């Protein structure tokens, strides 16, 4: 995770200190690492699974700058983009052909169709129950597909092809680690981190 946490986050006790230290490098209790491997059973690649903490106390404002998805070579890039609720995503069309962006999920939206070099924004303002996965589709090219996965907090990571993930700077505490995948699923797992050594949480995804 690479979201900057605002110093405006005010929490009681150690939690507050830990979180502040994440964003400000203030000396104190260090954040922990949660890492592991996700195995996407039956798929040629274990990439594009989102591993995230289901609920972390505190509020996590969306970043001021929009997140980006590029429509390039007839593909949504990145294929899977996790964001904190409230984040604005800017969709760029880098192809010489016109692309469209719409989603049939939740409140549903259609940003229209636009040419190369232009962008359109959409703000993912709410998510009643994380994760809220919005499939991103293009009416012009039905095979194009991407995902914006809306989460409560910025403690998340996306797996690479080897299935490995790493979430940094997790404040000490006990959490439920969830995993989202476009085709497969797995139950969440509990984890406790104390700010000293990395915690390892592996998942095997199935149908």
């Amino acid at each position: 995770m690479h979201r900057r946490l605002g110093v405006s986050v005010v929490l009681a006790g150690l939690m507050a200190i830990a979180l502040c230290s994440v964003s400000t490098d203030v000396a104190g209790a260090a954040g922990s690492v949660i890492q592991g491997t996700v195995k996407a059973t039956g798929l040629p690649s274990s990439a594009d699974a989102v591993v995230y903490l289901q609920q972390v106390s505190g509020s996590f404002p969306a970043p001021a700058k929009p997140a980006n998805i590029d429509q390039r070579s007839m593909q949504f890039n990145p294929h899977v983009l996790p964001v904190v609720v409230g984040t604005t995503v800017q969709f760029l069309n880098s192809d010489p052909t016109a692309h469209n962006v719409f989603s049939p999920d939740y409140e549903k939206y259609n940003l229209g169709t636009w040419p190369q070099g232009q962008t359109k924004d959409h703000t993912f303002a709410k998510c009643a129950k994380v994760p809220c996965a919005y499939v991103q589709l293009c009416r012009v090219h039905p095979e194009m597909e991407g995902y914006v996965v809306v989460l409560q907090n910025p403690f998340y990571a996306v797996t690479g092809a080897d299935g490995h993930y790493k979430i940094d700077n997790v404040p000490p505490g006990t959490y439920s680690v969830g995993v989202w995948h476009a085709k497969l699923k797995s139950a969440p797992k509990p984890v406790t981190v104390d700010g000293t050594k990395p915690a390892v949480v592996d998942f095997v995804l199935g149908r």
Partner: protein
Amino acid sequence: MIAQRYSAQRVVRTAVIGVALLAIASTAHAVPAFARKYQTSCQTCHIVFPKLNAFGEAFRLRGYRMPGETEEMVKQPAVSLGSPAYKKLWPQAVWPGEISSAVPLAVNVKMAEVNTSSVNDDGSVSRISNDLQFPQEVNIFGAGTLGEHVSYFTEVTFSANADGSVAVDLEHAHMGFDSPFGPEDLFHFRIGKFAPNVVDGFQEMWIATDGAIDSLFNYNPIGVNGGTGLGADALSPNSISLPALVNGVEGYGIINHRAMWVAGLANGVMAAPGDTTGRFDGNNAKDVYARFDYKFGGMGLDGDTGGQPIPEKNWHDNSLRVGVFTYRGDASSIPFALETDSGVNVNIEDSHFLRTGFYASVFYQDLNVFGAYLHGTDTLNTTDAATGALLQAIEPAYHAWFTQADYMIYPWLQASGRYETVTPADPAVQSIRIGTLNMSALVRANVKVMVEYQRDLRQGDNHSLNALLRFAF
């Protein structure tokens, strides 16, 4: 072979005819398009192609999908024709699908070195020696899946004729809808032209011999006193015996890994040659068929192994498979022209016919013994071709059976022997008995050399000895 198809069916003599061995080749499938798709050997599915092993049979029944197939088993990634998310949009969007990234084509070629001896009507014997029928047949296949629930199989056959021309036949063209609802593999549907799952085993999937089982598929029931012998070609939808191919729709499925149900509806006997209406079906009535079978032991029909390791030798599948089948045809208003012995031109109509049978197949180590029994009844109405007067109405019956043993000597060498017999309905005709011996050798997994000897066991001067080379790529 194909040249005979459309001539033999209408010209039927009432005289007792000798059993000229028809030597109608069984249709044979080896589809390396699948080998390419999964980057696997032919022997994953075939014992000696086209004969399928238990895994191959499961692959076929599941709509050309491996048991427990996952995306990573498919080595040629599919091309998406729409994100699966479009399912949520239907009917405001086209339902998503996919196609193979490589053109799923395959070719089979067959060469035959032919030696035959046949007794003519006047008692003389004709002999053909070392006739190099190179090639005798070329088949082009296109087969695969279109996403999770759709499959297809097409085959175009080019057969060389004696006069140098080539006959083209659309032998298969069907689309399958696989497990569209319900538990996996309980419901499959096929539409098109295909080998009905009633008889697929003896026509295609279990047979490595070149000769088809004529006693089941090439009996001709049309005759003034009932059928007299072989003649109609099962590969034609005009077959009035047991059809090896149908134009129709079929449902089938696997119940609890072990049982199989089949129910189908087919056009049946095609329009008479003089029919100018352009119709495919000779009448408005449809034929229906059904089958039920059960497999004891061995691999499940859907490839289920119950967690047991599968035998190291790909043909080992110690098991017993038994089944019953029935086909009811309606050929009313389809005249078969005939000249009686006394020179009267008549039309014979088979207003309805019933074919019912059972079969069994036992695998034990290197040996597979299988066979089928068929009982057929016809309803023949003979009318005077000139006046239309009904001359005779009879309900003749015939029966046929065969048994075959296949023995694997080496993983590349199979010996087969088959005995088949048909007792025609016309009581004046002796039963027909045919023996077939075959030695099949895989030179490579996709190259096969066969020597096949076939003999009319009633008339020893009817025989053939062919050497065949088949390859698939």
